[in-house]
């Protein structure tokens, strides 16, 4: 999600120029719009007819508000683990989507609480939640160019992560080396100390320190 492109003209490809504040009267565009409108009317008529055949009432979908954002995929995992390991008291008979803040997964936009992550994510995907958060439920269709850019970016990202890993490994190895060095120094110091304590100053012979000496395996 980090590589959003600069906004382009609302009327299609190409960056917005300095005259783009003026509405362009474009026949093709109007023809396309008219065709789209016609198709929608037709589709609605068909749906109405089919609903009638099935003996149901046709309920048209609420029009999408003009300022609705396109819906985007989640950039991160939902943080459901925040609730893991906590005992939650869920009132008996609590249904799906309890009004108000309660124990469980709370949606501040809709002021509803859900008792498990599955119900919660179902809610986040619901038309109700999308409408409450000003999303259209429509997803922008990506072009081949978008896909290309995306994959190139993912590749770069992966390479950087690998580099970080190598650096991480290197620093870990270095720390380890320094630690080993300190331990060795400590052992040397102790040995010198012991040597000073023995009468002849020669210290205890190395092999005497080992357990089970004399047995050669």
């Amino acid at each position, binding site marked *: 999600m980090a590589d959003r492109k600069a906004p382009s003209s609302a009327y299609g490809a190409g960056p917005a120029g300095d005259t783009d504040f003026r509405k362009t009267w474009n026949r093709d565009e109007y023809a396309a719009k008219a065709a789209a409108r016609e198709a929608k009317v037709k589709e609605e008529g068909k749906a109405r007819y089919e609903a009638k055949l099935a003996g149901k009432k046709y309920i048209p979908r609420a029009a999408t508000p003009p300022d609705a954002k396109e819906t985007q995929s989640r950039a991160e*995992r939902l943080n459901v683990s925040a609730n893991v390991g906590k005992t939650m008291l869920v009132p008996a008979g609590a249904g799906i989507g309890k009004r108000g803040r309660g124990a469980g997964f709370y949606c501040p936009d809709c002021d509803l609480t859900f008792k498990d992550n599955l119900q919660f994510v179902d809610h986040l995907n619901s038309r109700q939640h999308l409408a409450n958060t000003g999303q259209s*439920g429509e997803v922008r269709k990506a072009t*081949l160019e978008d896909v290309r850019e995306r*994959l190139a970016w993912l590749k770069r990202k992966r390479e950087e992560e690998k580099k970080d890993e190598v650096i991480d490994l290197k620093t870990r190895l270095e720390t380890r080396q320094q630690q080993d060095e300190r331990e060795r120094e400590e052992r040397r110091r102790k040995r010198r100390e012991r040597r000073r304590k023995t009468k002849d100053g020669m210290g205890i012979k190395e092999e005497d320190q080992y357990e089970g000496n004399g047995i050669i395996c």
Partner: protein
Amino acid sequence: MSGHKADAKALLDDRGYSGPLIRGENPANLIEKPLQDRITETYYWKEQCFALNEASLCDRAVDMNFIGGTYGQQKASPFLCLVFKLLQLQPEREIVLYYLHNEEGFKYLTALAAFYIRLTFEPVEIYKALEPLLSDYRKLRRRRNDGFMITHMDQFIDDLLTKDRMCGTTLWKLPKRQLLEDLELLDERVSPLADEIEAIDNENDDAREGDESREGSDYERRNGANGRSRSRSRSSEGR
């Protein structure tokens, strides 16, 4: 500019479905109905597949680390979820082919595209698109009910071209290569391996140099000896 729906309601509404058809069918039905339910009830589907488009789907595809159908309590794999998402998105052909050959080297994206192509392309196009991958020997992890196993891209592609069941679902019946050859819809395939063998047999014969099907012969040379590579088709005689 047409958009996609963030959810799959339209796709799953079998009677009301009004989107494009594949072989006269709602594309969802290229996956068996019970498996569709297995897919759409997973948390992965709900959380990770919601509102994806052709580009953001790549994020998920490159994060995959195994292929497979269902495992455990009949849980659908992320692989299947993404196949199903593709059936909903129906990306343009050039995008699907870009996934398949992605030069970034994301092999699970290649496998995903291959499976989607097997489900949705026309027979001749399936062979044309997938056969070059018979000399792709990258390793793939495959998850089964009893754990993981290692397979390879060429094996996976070979299965797609020859088997009727894969990843927990029945594949529609793909006409045999031979039949398409007899109808002169496909040229005879020259296995890179067969070609290689022949090249060794006829050391002096360089007529075959530059044959396009020789790509990947390096792979064959390296891997041919361990007996894993198969020559699926007849040799290049009579071409």
